[in-house]
């Protein structure tokens, strides 16, 4: 019984906010400004007018596209830089390997709000602020330590015997990497990609300082920030739903690569 209650509580905590978000996004004005009456559990007259308004705003399309482009390029760049690094850190017994990994991850120990000033200062100096590339680079900077950390773990967990066997069967380093190690590290790398997408899609602080004043390259989070005081809340809720859906969709897409126990049956 206690167990059952626990599940109910957990569901309420997880589903509750999502429900509120959805509810507000389809609320009519009278269900928000109730004039002292309690806010209803479900709007009196559910309406999609917030979405209609949102999708009629051409800036919103621009912003949506910006977010997609920036996050996809962040994933691409992060993977291009992160996979070789994690391969080396995961597969080679380099001296000081653990220290190096620790140093890489410790970059993220600073609060974003503390590191954003020097980074943006530097980006301004090299003329990278208010550009797509600048934002992509900044997001890559944030994601890379995690990609390397997760990726190195994925490469490290592949049994040495498999690599030895591939070499004895005649495979060179490249063939061993592309035919064996990369496919086997795929679940970990997919997890890193999901993480990178989430990070870039949700990122606010760096985007804010780097893009401020240049509306053409705004991402969804900045767009949301720009109308945060706008009434009624149904528009905000609709934007939030639009922020969430791609994240969920992307996670589902990549999930098929995250097969648990992919290496089962390889050794022993």
């Amino acid at each position, binding site marked *: 019984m206690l167990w059952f209650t626990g599940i109910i509580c957990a569901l309420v905590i997880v589903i509750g906010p999502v429900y509120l978000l959805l509810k507000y996004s389809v609320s009519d004005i009278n269900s928000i400004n109730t004039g002292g009456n309690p806010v209803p559990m479900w709007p009196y007259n559910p309406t999609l007018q917030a979405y209609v308004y949102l999708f009629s705003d051409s800036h919103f399309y621009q912003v949506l596209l910006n977010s997609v482009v920036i996050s996809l390029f962040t994933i691409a760049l992060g993977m291009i830089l992160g996979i070789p690094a994690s391969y080396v850190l995961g597969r080679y017994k380099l001296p000081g390997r653990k220290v190096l990994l620790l140093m890489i991850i410790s970059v993220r120990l600073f609060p974003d709000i503390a590191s954003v000033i020097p980074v943006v200062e530097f980006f301004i100096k090299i003329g990278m602020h208010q550009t797509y590339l600048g934002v992509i680079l900044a997001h890559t900077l944030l994601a890379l330590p995690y990609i390397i950390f997760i990726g190195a773990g994925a490469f490290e967990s592949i049994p040495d015997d498999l690599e030895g066997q591939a070499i004895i069967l005649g495979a060179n380093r490249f063939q061993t990497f592309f035919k064996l190690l990369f496919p086997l590290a795929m679940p970990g790398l997919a997890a890193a990609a999901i993480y990178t997408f989430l990070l870039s899609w949700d990122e606010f602080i760096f985007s804010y300082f780097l893009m401020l004043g240049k509306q053409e390259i705004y991402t969804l989070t900045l767009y949301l920030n720009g109308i945060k005081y706008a009434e009624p809340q149904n528009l905000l809720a609709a934007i939030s739903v639009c922020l969430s859906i791609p994240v969920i969709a992307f996670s589902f897409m990549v999930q098929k690569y995250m097969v648990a126990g992919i*290496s089962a049956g390889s050794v022993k």
Partner: protein
Amino acid sequence: MADVVIRSLFKKYGNHRVIENLNLEIHDGEFVTLLGPSGCGKTTLLRMIAGLEPIDNGELFINGKLYNHIPPQKRSLAMVFQSYALFPHMTVRKNICFGMKIKKLSKSEMDRKFEWVINLLRLKELENRLPREISGGQRQRVALARSLVLDPEVLLLDEPLSNLDAALRETASEELKRIHRQLGKTIIYVTHNQVEAMTMSERIALFRFGRIEQYDKPRVLYDSPATVFSAEFIGSPKMNFYEGEIEIRNNVAGIKTDLAFLKLDKEREKTIFSMPGRKILAGIRPQTVYYTGHLLRRRYTDTEVEILAELVENMGDRSLVVGRTEAGTLIRFIITREEKIDQDKRMKIFIDGRRIHVFDPITQLNIFR
């Protein structure tokens, strides 16, 4: 097919010497087992032959060619790992064809070899399964198949049977022998299981602390162990050992031990006649002790001992008896199932003097080799 020659090989991990001045010659087409307790360097040697571990010092020749600096990809040998190391994301077919694809064999040749090997190793109908979907015995055969299709000159096997259960292990070992007979490849086989080594190999290299203790045919290893370690390691149950010294009684030389005054065969008796007083370690295999109840013609070389059967362990087809003499010395021996011995029974046993092993307690060497 090829012969393998190893000359004064050394290998160190940090300060730990894994292999020390090792010499080994393996003939073309021979089935040689590297046998020894775990951590004795046998797997390291195998990995050095395969090229996965660099050679610190010494020479490795295959077919007369120096192999020290040839990268593992270019060595025409194959290895089956203890873990089988099947590629988990590839089907059985892709696993088996992996090496052939890398060597860029033509499609028709690849198909021909694949057909040949799945028939040889009974892998039909498994070709589209993943490694996790097949049994342990099948995985072992896939690993072997993957090596055999490359037609290696030398086949290295690292404890390929140790992950199988007892029944499967027997079938698999018979199969390995059959394949060796059929293909005539040089096989180097690593195991810590003396039964596997004895039944399968043509010669056994017995390892101890990175050195070869003895390198001989299985029968020779069993019948005349060169050292105390060989004598102890080979044979089950373990050999009985007694410290003693050479003594001459009634003009006959023998070994005085706590168990009895042990007589030897005539030829060896002559030899030890000239060394009275010499300290000896005598080894008696449990299988060379006979029981009086069993009507045997006694030989003059037999030593008679009276014991009390303290413990009788039934092993099915035979029993292990632990006997104690009046003086308290223990002896372990085997009786067949036809001979029945009750526990706590007094009895007489005979030790076959022709098959007593005589070692020097200091050098640990067999003095008759």
